[in-house]
């Protein structure tokens, strides 16, 4: 049974539809990431689950309780905010103990639980400090501790790492992953960072303008995107999109000078139809296959690999991974890819399989 069911939830602010018939099922113990660009409604959805934002229509079920009309305090969820949202006038220990105090837990049990959480998150030396005396990473640890302390049915994370610097973000990301593996509780995590989504999630829900674009495991979204938006949003550097037309009675695509075999597609395409060909940078460094010639503008050397930015003869810009050499500005190099790696999208951006 699902631990969290979001069923046909819609919400609008005036004329702006921020959530449009969104349905998500979250399995017990799983880690689900709501991913999307800013303004896609992902935080609104999370706040709706927490009970901080009323919804216009739809149902939210946590465990076996319909919580749609319950206030936040009765939903038995814990939330970690992007801004940490620590209580500025309370010490770290008082912050972590607050949810227990609100539930009327006696002082001794509360102290024990707080100490346990402090040990788990290694924030014991900070317990008597005030939030403003802590660094960003320490604050977010305390916020996570405050969520952990009362063992809720559901953990909600609202872009918890966005305010941290890159190194700390990687460190805390791994820590959240470890935490999930050790306590195996249901977690819903909102982010606009596809790296966070890919590394943390069991399941990713990609949102755009209040609608679900695709739901799936990280690898299925990466390998088998339903549309050009998901294909472009997931993966760094992003997928290259090239204009192409159908030729040879639907057996091939013409993209510039390249001829791409598409006999593996189940759909038959009519000659002359305009489509978009998507190919990831990391699939452009093969030994054989379809060739494209790229005139190089910039090469980013990352040590283990390099990314070459340049333009095709058609003028379309392309990013390609390069593992063996690092071509310089003005050189023309040959890119090769396997036709089965190419993803084909129609004029509306929907995937053609």
């Amino acid at each position: 049974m699902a631990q969290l069911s979001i069923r046909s939830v819609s919400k609008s602010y005036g004329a702006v539809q921020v959530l449009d018939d969104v349905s998500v099922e979250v399995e017990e113990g799983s880690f689900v990431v709501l991913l999307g660009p800013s303004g896609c409604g992902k935080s609104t959805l999370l706040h709706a689950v927490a009970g901080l934002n009323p919804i216009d229509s739809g149902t939210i079920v946590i465990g076996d309780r319909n919580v749609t009309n319950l206030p936040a305090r009765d939903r038995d969820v814990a939330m970690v905010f992007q801004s940490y949202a620590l209580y500025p006038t309370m010490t770290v220990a008082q912050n972590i103990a607050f949810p227990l105090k609100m539930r009327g837990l006696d002082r001794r049990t509360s102290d024990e639980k707080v100490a346990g959480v402090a040990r788990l998150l290694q924030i014991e030396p900070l317990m008597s400090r005030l939030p403003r005396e802590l660094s960003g990473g320490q604050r977010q640890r305390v916020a996570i501790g405050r969520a952990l302390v009362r063992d809720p049915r559901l953990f909600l994370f609202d872009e918890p790492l966005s305010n941290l610097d890159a190194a700390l973000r990687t460190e805390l990301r791994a820590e959240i992953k470890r935490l999930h593996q050790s306590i195996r509780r249901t977690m819903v995590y909102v982010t606009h960072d596809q790296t966070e989504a890919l590394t943390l999630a069991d399941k990713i829900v990609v949102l755009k303008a209040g609608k679900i674009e695709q739901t799936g495991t990280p690898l299925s979204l990466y390998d088998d995107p339903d549309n050009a938006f998901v294909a472009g949003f997931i993966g760094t550097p992003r997928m290259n999109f090239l204009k192409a037309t159908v030729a040879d009675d639907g057996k091939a695509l013409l993209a510039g000078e390249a001829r791409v075999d598409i006999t593996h597609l189940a759909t038959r395409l009519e000659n002359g139809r305009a489509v978009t060909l998507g190919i990831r940078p990391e699939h452009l460094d093969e030994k054989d296959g379809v060739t494209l010639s790229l005139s190089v503008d910039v090469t980013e050397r990352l040590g283990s690999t390099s990314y070459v930015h340049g333009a095709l003869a058609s003028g379309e810009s392309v990013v390609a991974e390069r593992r063996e050499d690092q071509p310089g500005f003005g050189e023309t190099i040959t890119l090769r890819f396997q036709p089965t790696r190419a993803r084909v999208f129609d004029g509306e951006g929907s995937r053609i399989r």
Partner: protein
Amino acid sequence: MSTVATASDPTRHFFQPVIVCLTVASVALTLFVIWISLHDLSLMRAGREKFVGLDNYIRFLGDPRAMAALWRTVLFTTLATVIEIALGLAVVLFLDRNFAMKRLVRTLLLVPIIMTPVVVGLTWRFLFDSATGMANYLLSLVGIAQVDWLGSPRIALFAVLIADIWQWTPFVILLVMAALESAPTDPLNAARVDGAREWQVTWYVLLPMLRRALAIVALIRAIDSIKAFDLFYIMTRGGPALSTETLNYYGYIVAFTNFDISYSLAIAIILTIFTNVALLTMYSVLFPKTGDR
């Protein structure tokens, strides 16, 4: 900023002379006032004053009218500050953060603050007139007998208090409203998720965040109430039977009715010392050195 940076800061040529002038002026005036308060200068006996030491201060301690005025000042200041803060805070919490016509309400709140005390005093004097005033008319509608607002020694001080509350509660509302607007909302939501009821969110999270703003407003209001003069002058002139005479007002009477300048200045100095001690105590309670903020 380090002291080295301050020393080499060329702007000091502008502000340091100002500070020196102000310091000299206030120190010189204070010393002059103290010096006069140690004499028996009276405009009735000009040119015949002599040094009397602490006589004026000893006279104050034995002056029942002065002691009563001091007590009235304490009572008025305490009541005005507490009621204005409590009422202002209640109004702010009652009005939501974003209610309709907020701008209009904010503008209307400025009206009592901007109004000159003379107009406020006269208006309330008319309202409180026992025969023709609106206050008694409204009371009569609900069947309460006439109240002699400004004529009864037991009530007059509270009548002035009501006028003061009417004029200055909006000031509290404006400042607390601004503090509330700049306070982060995420901790409030965090408390709701953590299981707090709305009153608990207010009590445990919101009010502690507003404490500093409230303390500053309370200090400002307390200082103003101690110095209050104009409302008393317009509404009651210290009467009836001295029942609304505050220490500030008594000092004025001593100087400009009795022309006893030295004693009046002694009263002013005592009021100053008293105010400073009270406010420093209040300040140290509201802003403890250790602990938060």
